């Protein structure tokens, strides 16, 4: 696939290390710095990063996967050394748009589980809510603290050219159940600061390390109002879950207990955890398990990941569960097209962030358009996930398109279609050197009493050439995301390093490393001699 639209370069295709007008302003300093680095620097830094990640144990578990030793079910998430840089003015508008969108989505959820005004107004067909598998009738009429359902939202955003060829952000998907990846956002930044401290002195990169603080504040604000000093816990399915590292990381960073279902029990309609000093009451659960596993008496009867009787405690208002039960009804693909209408309906505002234009095959006109133009569209099954039940028109054969047409005609309301976006790419350090790869961005938006977020998010990158799939389970990696504090040139004039100086610096750092390694070896040899 032709690369058309890049974060760093305004004109493509490009030759790397040729400088001039085609570099976007906010990448200029980085580009100059990169050109000064000796050729082997990036490879060395990458090795260093992998060593550190493995030692620190920043891994995700791969289900049922074993390496040659029969061990190694833990993989490192691929980390790319080249940052994704976002200029200050772009972030300012993103931030406003995210606040607006998350506020509207929460108002929508409250409405759906209470008076259903939006259905009465006829803006969304009733059956699309009530027949949705993610709709939880158990939640009807339940009042939640602050009226908030999704305290932690991960909004997936891509950048693509609009009709005039200018860059524009589009929301691809809302994640309101248990969005993950925030630990990688934080660890990627730590790693970048460790590997490239000089780059941070040349850029004014907005800090993000206070995310766990904001998260804790949000969770405490979400406690039932009767509790003065709420006890917050993180609920994990356990250490064999693929995101266990993140659960443990967040609990530690917030200084709260990391509990499993077996640590919790319900007594007299309150929830307690078992401690070395007896039962202790729990007020807020930041749960990292799906609705289905929360309470075996209401949902899946055989699940041991949750706690018996928890839902009743929740409905009584003796505990809050974050995110709330039943948020999935708002982040479904079939509901996504209505979000701009929600913003208008609940807030009386125009949407700041664009949706990708979406054709709902349930509508006659849309269906006719989709049938006529399928070869140019991306068609998605409403309840499909992970790239299944999906047709990418331009990449499909004629036969595949014909098959899909039959499927859509047989069940139009099961499908939506979108134009094929030319997703932006970003220079990425891959095996063959530096090359463009497609990226997306997931900022994390917190909502307790108010909306808060750190300036940034997780940038995921599709490491395979031409691929649009950024999921870590399918060969995706991550990049540090830099939100610049202002778009002006840095205040401090940076003395430009010559290439020779940069080379000398890299060598000096390597020597220090070698020395440390040699010392370790010497020590172990001395131990043998001493015996």
């Amino acid at each position, binding site marked *: 696939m032709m690369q058309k639209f890049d974060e760093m370069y305004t004109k493509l295709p490009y030759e790397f290390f040729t400088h001039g007008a085609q570099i976007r302003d906010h990448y200029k300093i980085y580009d100059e710095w990169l050109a000064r680095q000796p050729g082997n620097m990036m490879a060395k830094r990458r090795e260093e990063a992998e060593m550190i990640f*493995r*030692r*620190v*144990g920043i891994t995700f578990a791969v289900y049922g996967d074993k390496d040659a*030793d029969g*061990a190694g079910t833990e993989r490192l998430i691929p980390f790319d050394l080249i940052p994704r840089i976002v200029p200050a003015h772009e972030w300012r508008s993103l931030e406003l748009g995210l606040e607006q969108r998350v506020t509207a989505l929460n108002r929508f959820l409250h409405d759906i589980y209470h008076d259903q005004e939006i259905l009465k107004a006829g803006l969304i067909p009733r059956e699309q809510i009530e027949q949705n598998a993610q709709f939880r009738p158990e939640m009807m009429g339940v009042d939640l603290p602050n009226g908030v359902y999704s305290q932690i939202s991960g909004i997936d955003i891509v950048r693509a050219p609009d009709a005039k060829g200018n860059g524009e952000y589009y929301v691809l998907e809302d994640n309101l159940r248990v969005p993950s990846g925030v630990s990688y956002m934080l660890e990627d930044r730590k790693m970048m600061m460790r590997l490239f401290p000089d780059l941070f002195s040349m850029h004014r990169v907005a800090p993000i390390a206070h995310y766990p603080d904001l998260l804790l504040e949000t969770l405490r604000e979400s406690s039932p109002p009767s509790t003065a000093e709420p006890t917050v816990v993180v609920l994990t399915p356990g*250490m064999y879950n693929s995101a*266990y590292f993140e659960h*443990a*990381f967040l*609990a*530690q960073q917030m200084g709260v*207990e*990391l*509990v*499993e279902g*077996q*640590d919790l*029990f*319900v*007594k007299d309609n309150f929830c*307690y*955890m*078992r*401690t*070395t*000093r*007896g*039962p202790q009451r729990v007020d807020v659960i930041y749960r990292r398990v799906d609705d289905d596993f929360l309470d075996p008496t209401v949902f899946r009867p055989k699940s041991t990941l949750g706690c018996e009787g928890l839902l009743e405690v929740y409905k009584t208002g003796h505990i809050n569960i974050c995110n709330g039960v039943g948020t999935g009804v708002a982040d479904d693909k079939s509901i996504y097209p209505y979000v701009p209408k929600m913003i208008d309906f609940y807030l009386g505002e125009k949407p700041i962030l664009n949706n990708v234009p979406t054709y709902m095959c349930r509508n006659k006109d849309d269906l006719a358009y989709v049938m006529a133009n399928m070869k140019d569209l991306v068609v998605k099954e409403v309840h499909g996930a992970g790239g299944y039940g999906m047709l990418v028109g331009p990449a499909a054969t004629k036969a595949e398109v014909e098959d899909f047409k039959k499927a859509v005609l047989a069940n139009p309301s099961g499908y939506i279609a979108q134009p094929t976006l030319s997703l932006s790419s970003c220079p990425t350090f891959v095996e063959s050197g530096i090359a463009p790869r497609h990226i997306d961005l997931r900022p994390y938006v917190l909502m307790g009493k108010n909306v808060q977020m750190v300036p940034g998010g997780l940038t995921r990158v599709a490491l395979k050439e031409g691929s649009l799939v950024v999921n870590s389970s399918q060969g995706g990696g991550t990049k540090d995301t830099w939100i610049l504090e202002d778009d002006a040139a840095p205040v401090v004039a940076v003395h430009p390093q010559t290439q020779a100086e940069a080379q000398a610096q890299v060598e000096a750092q390597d020597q220090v490393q070698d020395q440390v390694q040699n010392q370790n070896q010497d020590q*172990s040899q001395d*131990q*043998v001699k001493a*015996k």
Partner: protein
Amino acid sequence: MLSRTADHLFWMNRYTERAENTARLLDVNYQTSLLPQSAAMAQAGWQGLLSISELLPAYKEKHDTIVAREVMDFMVKDEKNPSSIVSCLSAARENARAVRGTLTTEVWETQNQTWLEVKRMIKQGDFEADPSQFFEWVKFRSHLSRGVTVGTMLMDEALHFMRLGTFLERADNTARLVDVKFHAVDKDFYGTANGKDQEYDFYHWSAILRSVSGFEVYRKVYRDVIRPERVAELLILRPDMPRSLHASLNEVVGNLGMVANDQSSETQRRAGKLRAELQYGRIDEILATGLHAYLTQFLDRINDLGANISHDFLVPVPA
């Protein structure tokens, strides 16, 4: 603190300590086997080592004869043997991983690094190439793990449960070590009068001392030739010998006191009583009743303490 968290911390340290003591024991046996001695005596040494850990039946299931190399492999890298060094280090790391949020970054990284390294070393054949160096490495990782724990962890419950695990395990392991080595001398040991030749005695007893880093300590404390009664006294009764039963029980009692809760008074009483007996006991009294008999009841009581600690703090109370 969550009962489950305390449980993981307790066992993380027990497994680390066990790996260290197994390495110590294997190292001493390996070094002793390099001395000229009869084949029967060498075999008795390896057999003793298996019975110390109650692993003789498990070993015999797989191997017909007791061969030094196979015993070492079984005790070092057999993942099916839950007490092998690799199994212990892996169990310690799994426990650490389950509660990594409770540990400081340094403590977690130490456990994780140990596990990554041991896998690499076994794969590369480092153990076969130089067993002693491998055992040294295991000991040093355990030292490092203890040091980084004391040096970085907040001095709260988490630390006390970890220390409790370390010293309960150490009391158990030292008792087993003394038992098997004295057992090897005679049916039961009541004091020297058996007239074994002095050269054998020197190597035999100094090996025990070395396995608990006690050779120089012995010289310093007693300024005398090595006598079995004193070796026993040093390893059982001396409160200043860091691997002795008395010193271990001091730590157990101290840490237990720090985490005491409403239902733990009986456990504390039993631990305190056991410590008092070591504090006021005399080696000639112990030897008069027979060392093996004494150590057998000691191990039973340690086991009982472990069960009580689990009951009072660790095993979840049914709602």
